[in-house]
């Protein structure tokens, strides 16, 4: 174990590791490209679905069980299936990652909407707000913390799973994992795993900052008071 750690440190210390078309910086950009594009597309699809179900209350069963379906779907199978249909391009990676991210965002968006106090919703209606205004001015802001929880969970899973891009010959940090495995070079696998974990944690922290910025001030104050 000590020997492996020393090998990993040496692996990271190698200056040629960081630059060039196969360097860490290039792999980081690829990994970010796969992960962020997939997450953005997933949010664009999942958020309206979750908001619609939460606002109308129709399809709650679907929204609650979708996360379970998402967890059950084997991503490796999805990547390979899309690959066999579409051939050698990035579609398999994007389809699999978007499909992975959608359920958890839909379920959390719905949960956030369902947790909005009925009295608050009724009061908004009573002051003359119409359905759209209630949705965008009352429900959505109040649901932000849970929605962002869903997005953060999705990002962590997507970053870890984007490793699979390397299986069908593309880049990202998964290259180190698959190449290290093929070359029986555990230091390289370890290095790749560390880079992926650090990227996932960094994006999670960035999103928790965004979550704090997006949470309405009244809600944040109320939470702080109830935590005391």
């Amino acid at each position: 174990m000590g020997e492996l750690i020393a090998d990993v440190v040496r692996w990271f210390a190698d200056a040629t590791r960081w630059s060039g078309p196969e360097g860490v910086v290039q792999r980081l950009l690829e990994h970010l490209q796969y992960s962020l594009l997939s997450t953005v597309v997933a949010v664009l699809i999942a958020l309206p679905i979750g908001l619609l179900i939460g606002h109308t209350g129709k399809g709650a069963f679907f929204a609650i069980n979708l996360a379970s379906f998402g967890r059950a779907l084997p991503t490796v199978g999805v990547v390979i299936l899309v690959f066999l249909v579409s051939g050698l391009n990035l579609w398999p990676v994007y389809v699999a990652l978007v499909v992975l991210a959608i359920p958890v965002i839909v379920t959390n968006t719905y949960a956030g909407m369902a947790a909005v106090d009925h009295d608050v919703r009724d009061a908004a209606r009573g002051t003359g707000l119409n359905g759209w205004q209630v949705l965008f001015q009352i429900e959505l802001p109040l649901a932000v913390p849970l929605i962002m929880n869903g997005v953060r969970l999705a990002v962590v899973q997507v970053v870890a799973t984007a490793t699979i891009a390397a299986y069908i010959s593309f880049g990202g940090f998964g290259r180190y994992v698959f190449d290290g495995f093929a070359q029986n070079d555990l230091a390289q696998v370890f290095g790749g795993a560390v880079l992926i974990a650090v990227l996932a944690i960094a994006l999670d922290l960035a999103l928790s900052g965004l979550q704090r910025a997006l949470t309405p001030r009244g809600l944040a104050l109320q939470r702080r008071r109830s935590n005391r």
Partner: protein
Amino acid sequence: MRWSWIPDHAGDLAMTTLEHSAIAAVAVLCGLVLALPLGVLAVRFPVLKGAVLGISGVLFTIPSLALFILLLPLTGLSYETAVLGLTVYTLVVLVRNTVEGLASVPPHVREAARAMGYGGTRTLLTVELPLALPVIMAGVRVATVMTISLVSVAGFIGHGALGQLFIDGFQRDFAVPVIAGVVITLLLALVADLALVATQHALTPWTRRGR
């Protein structure tokens, strides 16, 4: 698309499904055996709580494939490596839910048990754990469904059960085994989840009373 591949290999598929279920079941059971004491310790000693939850959070960010490969020096290309790696992933969910479940027991219930002369261990076994059961079982359901899906990643180290069908289909440029693998995995997860819901229903009769 040569769909006849499925009936032609029905026996193999059944065996593979059994193997898949066994790997997932052993991993979740091992995870539960480890997570319960870890969760209890984390609740008893708040110093440990941050550490236990922090470590399990970081583990979740490590790609499952990398974890399997890194376990190879310990257990080689074996069935144990697959089970060990999957067990580590179940801990992420199971420890968290054990902690949350135990923390959700109302303090006055614990105090009442104490006042009736219950010792620490007896309170834990007969009061706290049963009351934490719904939350713990919710964790077991998530961990089980997740593990059934993750077994296929162990296909890269040769023990993916249904996941082996994906690699097989990929190498032969043949989609039918891949589709069969995905569909059977989903069905297996559904059946396991329903079985766990029924188990929880049977284990927690008090949650149904008075509704």
